[in-house]
């Protein structure tokens, strides 16, 4: 169960760290273009079956058609994005809510946890046909599946994070006479935030997967539908152009979560931490410069 927490990406993989990336971008570009040229040449000379492995120029044409001249992809893109985000939000609300309830209430934890484990080992995507049968062919079934897939990592990570609070700090709070409510808001919850965010990040990606799989299985709109349609028409160039939109969407959502993580769990990253410290010092000027009027020495 806890291995879900292992996929937090290393900081080295954060692509929006622009300054670090820019330096190498030139060479990367050259290599990338080289690969494209070789591929194009191989395609033109008939080394590949052009239907199954379309050459770059054909993919570029398809991209132009889908994204520029026809612009057909945008509506589907929006539908899938909306479904994924909605599913994620539902999962986050239910997952964090249940995890908090379990963390605060021992008997709840004891008698609900076994079902959560059963749910965990069930390949959640196997529920796809059932969820579609329950919720119909529209958006709601996609949102529901996205939420089901995203629920577990969020729930497990939140619960693990809330249960992990270290005994020393707990004792310190008790020695200060903290109430349970204060213990939760001022210690357990903030201490769990890094874990919660790791779960939310996995949940975000999972929600997108759930939505796309649901669209593959049965739907009328969304990029998954486009993908299925082009693949079965053996229009591989368009299928790959659609895949690109999925990568973009993944990148977009993932980056969004990373930025949120960076802002909220700032104390885990040196640069952010320094910035936040400076900002707080600046804000402190108000009480610091004010004359100490009310001192009762």
């Amino acid at each position: 169960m806890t291995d879900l927490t292992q996929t937090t990406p290393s900081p080295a993989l954060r692509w929006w760290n622009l300054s670090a990336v820019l330096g190498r971008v030139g060479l990367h570009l050259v290599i990338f273009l080289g690969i494209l040229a070789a591929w194009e040449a191989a395609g033109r000379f008939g080394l590949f079956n052009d239907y199954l492995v379309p050459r770059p120029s054909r993919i570029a044409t398809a991209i132009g058609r889908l994204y520029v001249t026809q612009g057909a992809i945008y509506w589907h893109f929006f539908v899938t994005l909306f479904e994924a985000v909605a599913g994620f939000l539902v999962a986050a609300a239910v997952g964090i809510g249940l995890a908090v309830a379990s963390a605060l209430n021992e008997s709840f934890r004891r008698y609900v946890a076994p079902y959560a484990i059963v749910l965990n080992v069930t390949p959640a995507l196997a529920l796809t046909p059932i969820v579609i049968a329950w919720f119909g062919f529209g958006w709601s079934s996609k949102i529901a599946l996205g939420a089901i897939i995203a629920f577990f990592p969020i729930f497990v990570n939140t619960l693990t994070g809330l249960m992990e609070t270290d005994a020393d700090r707990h004792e310190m709070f008790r020695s200060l006479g903290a109430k349970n409510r204060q213990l939760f808001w001022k210690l357990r919850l903030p201490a769990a935030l890094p874990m919660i965010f790791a779960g939310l990040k996995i949940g975000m990606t999972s929600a997108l997967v759930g939505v796309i799989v649901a669209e593959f299985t049965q739907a009328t709109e969304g990029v998954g539908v486009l993908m299925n349609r082009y693949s079965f028409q053996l229009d591989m160039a368009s299928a790959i152009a659609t895949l690109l939109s999925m990568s973009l969407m993944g990148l977009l959502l993932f980056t969004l979560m990373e930025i949120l993580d960076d802002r909220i769990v700032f104390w885990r990253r040196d640069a952010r931490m320094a910035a936040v410290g400076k900002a707080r010092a600046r804000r402190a000027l108000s009480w610091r410069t004010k004359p100490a009027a009310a001192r009762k020495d």
Partner: protein
Amino acid sequence: MNSIAIDRSSAAARPVPARPRVVGGVSAGETVIEARGVTKTFGDGSVVALEGASFEAKKGEFISLVGPSGCGKSTLLRIISGLIPKTGGSLSVHGREVTEPRSDIGMMFQKATLLEWRTAIENVLLPTELQRRVTADDKRRAAELLHMVGLKDFEFAFPRQLSGGMQQRVALARLLQTGADILLLDEPFGALDEFTRERLNVELMRVVAEVGGTTFFVTHNIQEAIFLADRVMVMTPRPGRLAKIVDVPFERPRDLSIQQSPEFNALVSEVRDVLGGH
């Protein structure tokens, strides 16, 4: 027990507290802690962690608790703090029996236990925040305390930006921010290197003298225990009990050099005999 009030007349020579937390003018020698046969057993009573400890502490006294692991010194400290209940005897602080953590008793731990999402000053303000709304005056007071423990320019540093010694300084400031006049310190510098520890010990003496708190200091280092304290409570294990209370007659403020004196070494031997004879 053989509790002898230490003559605190040298206190007059100490710098005037920046902001006295303890009401000044009360005559030294007032008993603030009274323990009679404090006992702690675990399970069905067969495991004795602490057996019948009796002692008294005067206002402003610095008392070290020294002994090997398992002698019950941390248990005793936690009973005084109200963190764990005793199973026998009586213990009163300021004339009131201790049954739970109280605002007149503060504790500092071996780990700094800082909240890593709060800056140093926000960590210092935690005790106030748990009691009531934080005012600008509280903030100024916290800044003063950070100044006092030598962290003037680090109010807005996060714990991860501070060294281990500096983190313990923040923890000390947080302890003082509680306003408690009974200060319980559980091996507060035990995890630090020798040099840092010595320096912090000297500063600790200065700071607690400045606020005039009654201090209990747990350690397993005999030299440290004697150097810091007015009295040393020597504890022995199996079962944990208070074996002897040794008076330390050195004048204050003290200098590290007293550790070379024959009187100091005699005290070390005395304590070692109690521990070794066990």
